[in-house]
């Protein structure tokens, strides 16, 4: 299990680095696909099978296809020389390392983990054994349509607004803004 975690974590990390450090936009997109597939493996390790499937279908499938379409459409104007932003890259790298060290130190000191490596408070009723006995997708669906019904409905409204907004923004106009 820790071997799979280590492998997927390294791939996810390298994919994340590739998104920022690639000079060509299409390489960034491919690195992001790599990162998302590795994340789906991590979700499987965390007993979240449905999230892993949605990650592959929605992110690696739909969202990245949209990205690649737009890159293919716009790529002549979308080249970027990284050398001209070297100083900013250096500063960004220092900031990123500092942030990661801060979170890592908090985690290893038990701030986010809790005393004795255990989380604060009582554990909830959804232990992996209980969830697997009831079915992972069934449990998630039950929760989604009972306890979390309002966020779910608001999300559907958000998707409607996004679809209308995208149609409005990309329709052909006589006079471009």
């Amino acid at each position, binding site marked *: 299990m820790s071997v799979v975690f280590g492998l997927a*974590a390294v791939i996810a990390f390298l994919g994340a680095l590739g*998104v920022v450090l690639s000079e060509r936009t299409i390489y960034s997109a491919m690195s992001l696909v790599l990162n998302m597939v590795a994340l789906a493996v*991590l979700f499987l390790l965390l007993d979240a099978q449905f999230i892993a499937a949605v990650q592959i279908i929605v992110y690696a499938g739909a969202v990245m296809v949209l990205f690649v379409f737009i890159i293919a459409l716009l790529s002549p104007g979308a080249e*970027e020389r990284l050398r001209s932003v070297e100083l*900013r890259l250096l500063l960004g790298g220092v900031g990123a390392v500092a*942030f990661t060290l801060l979170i890592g130190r908090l985690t290893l000191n038990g701030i986010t983990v809790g005393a004795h490596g255990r989380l604060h408070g009582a554990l909830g009723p959804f232990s992996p054994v209980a969830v697997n006995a009831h079915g992972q997708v069934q449990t998630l669906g039950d929760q989604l349509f009972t306890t979390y019904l309002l966020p779910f409905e608001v999300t559907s409204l958000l998707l409607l607004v996004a679809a209308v907004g*995208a149609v409005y*923004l990309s329709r052909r106009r006589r006079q471009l803004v």
Partner: protein
Amino acid sequence: MSGLFPGFLILSAAMFAIGAAGVLVRRNPLVVFMCIELMLNSANLALVTYARYTHTMAGQVFALIVIAVAASEVVVGLALITGVYRSGRRLDLDELSEMSE
């Protein structure tokens, strides 16, 4: 199994930091959008990790909602980028700065 818990959180933090650095450093709006996706993904990883180790379901439910939010954000953002491109501007965030002046 609980030995991997800090590992997941540190990977999530590293991905978030890389994404944030990318948003600040890169000038191509498409790459900036991909870095935002990276940050949303790292948040998802932290949510699912906490859901798994606290034996709750809320993290997974909200990871699903974050995925939906990310999809809508990409749709609107890419429509904006194509709009900017069709108006004849170069896709460079340093040049698209008149709103900040």
